[in-house]
């Protein structure tokens, strides 16, 4: 672990550990290194924000930690599993079990109701009807949409859609939730409410949230903030402490 790594906190081990991770994109004959030897540790039940300008590699890093992209070099351990060793099917199963996603554009399935969107990851896991029937209404209530269960995404506002997306991400009680600029498409008031909701979810479900964001409100709410520029970590700040770097 380098000095750019956040330290482990509490009795639980880290949710994600990245060691000397590199990633280069190849476009025709041009190679663009996006991530250059990054070491990161994402703490359990923490609100961690990746901060950096456009093109700094935030989304690429989130994708690799979220196991939807693979590094060219280095090692990624998520939920105590070396994800580089998993094949595509095993990685899909791993994501379904351990990682939740919240997207900037919500990415709900438009043909499924709010209830069904939240239920879908549970169906993928083969959860029983009883378990689904118990879990989904609780999540709907937790995100304040108990009365919108039957609404299709098209019948919900942006904020409500993002609430459904948060509930879907939490459905299988994952170890880590990845959120790529979750408030970017929301007005400031709704964004603040969503942020508040996610903060509550971290405390309630003891799940780690990893964000990329430019939103100062998000940064203010974060436990850990990782500063990224040109594919390298330029600094790490933990709430109530000096910069780690």
């Amino acid at each position, binding site marked *: 672990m380098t000095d750019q790594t956040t330290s482990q906190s509490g009795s639980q081990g880290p949710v994600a550990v990245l060691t000397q991770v590199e990633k280069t994109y190849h476009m025709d004959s041009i190679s663009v290194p996006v991530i250059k030897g990054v070491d990161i540790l994402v703490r359990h039940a923490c609100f961690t924000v990746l901060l950096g300008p456009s093109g700094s590699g935030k989304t690429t890093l989130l994708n690799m930690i979220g196991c939807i992209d693979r590094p060219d070099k280095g090692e990624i351990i998520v939920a105590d599993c070396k994800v580089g060793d998993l094949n595509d099917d095993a990685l899909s199963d791993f994501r379904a079990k351990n990682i939740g996603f919240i997207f900037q554009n919500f*990415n709900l399935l438009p043909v499924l109701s709010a209830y069904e969107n939240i239920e879908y990851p549970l169906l993928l896991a083969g959860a029983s009807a009883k378990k689904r029937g118990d879990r989904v209404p609780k999540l709907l209530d937790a995100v304040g949409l108990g009365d919108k269960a039957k609404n299709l995404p098209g019948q919900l506002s942006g904020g409500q859609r993002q609430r459904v997306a948060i509930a879907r991400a939490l459905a299988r009680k994952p170890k880590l939730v990845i959120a790529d600029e979750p408030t970017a498409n929301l007005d400031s008031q709704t964004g603040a409410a969503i942020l508040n909701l996610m903060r509550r979810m971290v405390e309630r479900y003891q799940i780690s949230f990893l964000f990329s964001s430019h939103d100062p409100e998000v940064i203010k709410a974060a436990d850990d903030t990782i500063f990224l520029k040109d594919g390298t970590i330029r600094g790490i700040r933990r709430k109530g402490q000096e910069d780690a770097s």
Partner: protein
Amino acid sequence: MMTLSLALRNLLRNRRRSLATLLAMAIGSTSILLFGGYSTNINYTMHTEYVQTGGHLQIQHRDFYLYGSGNPTAYGIADYAQIIAAIQSDEVLRGMVLVATPTLQFGGIAGNYAASVSRTIIGNGFVAEDINRMRRWNDFNLRSASPAFALEGAAADAAIVGTGVARVLQLCDALKIARCPKPEKEPKPDGKALPDDIAQLSLQEVPAAAAGAGSGARRIEVLAGNSKGAPNVTSLEVIRAEEQGFKELDEVYVMMHLAKTQQLIYGKSPPKVTSIILQLRHSDQIPAAMARLTPILTRFSATQPLAVLDFRTLNPFYVQTVQLFDTIFGFIFALIGAIVLFTVSNTMNTAVVERTVEIGTLRAVGLRRGGIRRLFVTEGALLGLCGAVLGVVLALLLAGVSNQMGLTWSAPGSVEPLPLTLRVWGETGMILGTTFGLICIAVLSAWWPAYRAAQLNVVDALRHV
């Protein structure tokens, strides 16, 4: 279950496109089934006609079919009555065989002495009652009925000829045949050009019967070689002319009583026949009946090698016609299948492009590549199933309407116009085959877009705009 529900909802999402694809498939399916119904009706009509006239099976001398036509002496079957008795007493065949009847075919010359005309003919001797029983066979429930065989109950010397025979033998007036053209007569030199005594003689030579239409005007003489090689003649009264469908047959065909035919060919020698016709209850009993006949015929084959031929072998035109329609059906199916293939493929390709982000999302939340493939293939299969079922319903409706309109058509080799029947209802094999075939094509067309969707890189899919 979730995959099916999701696939169905995705199809309903873009209703206009799904409906256009469904209609393309339904119209394709309807076209296939209607043509199949038409082709099936032709098959059944010809099948019925051949079985009604020549039965399902014929027992013949082994070489009669290839070498014996018109030579009953060399290829006749002796002991035919015992063979028929053995067939009718067999406990298995008894349940299958509706009619077992002998027939005698020969070649000869028919002449109308009164009109001074003659021509070569193919004569057939039948047991008239049996032929009438055979004409009642209607295993496919066709709407048309065959006319009764006029020889039943007619005099022993009665005969039925083809209308072509009647025309050539100048029997049209006597038989009151409509639309029967007569040859233009060469202008005869009038009496003034001849010396008086010669002209008088010439007028006396014109037979009185040639101008009249009494029973004498319907008599013909048939000449054939008998079993001893000598010519034999019999006089017949033509009671009716029946068109035979094919001109070549119509101009040579003469039907008469079997007893009279045997008298002509065999005289006082023991009579023989050239074929024993067996009509079965159902056409699918042919293999079983043939297998059962083999040991029976062995008992009679010591002096005369016998063979059993089915009606398909005896009527190659039927087989060729069915094959022709099967080929056209296959061609139409392939053509429509190709249209369905490209239509569904196009629809699914568009769906994959439109739903790229959704595919990325599903993969991100943990759906495997196989799950994506299943989803799109299920959508294709649903399109195929709905399109094919809609096509079946449309085909049944259109066939029902068409069958009620009283349209007619002329089958190859048939004389009377027949009701145009599109046989879709009840043709379970054709309906299921077409439905299953189209579903398979739809699944096949969805497979490649589904594969492409499953192979999408998750990150690229999520970035898709």
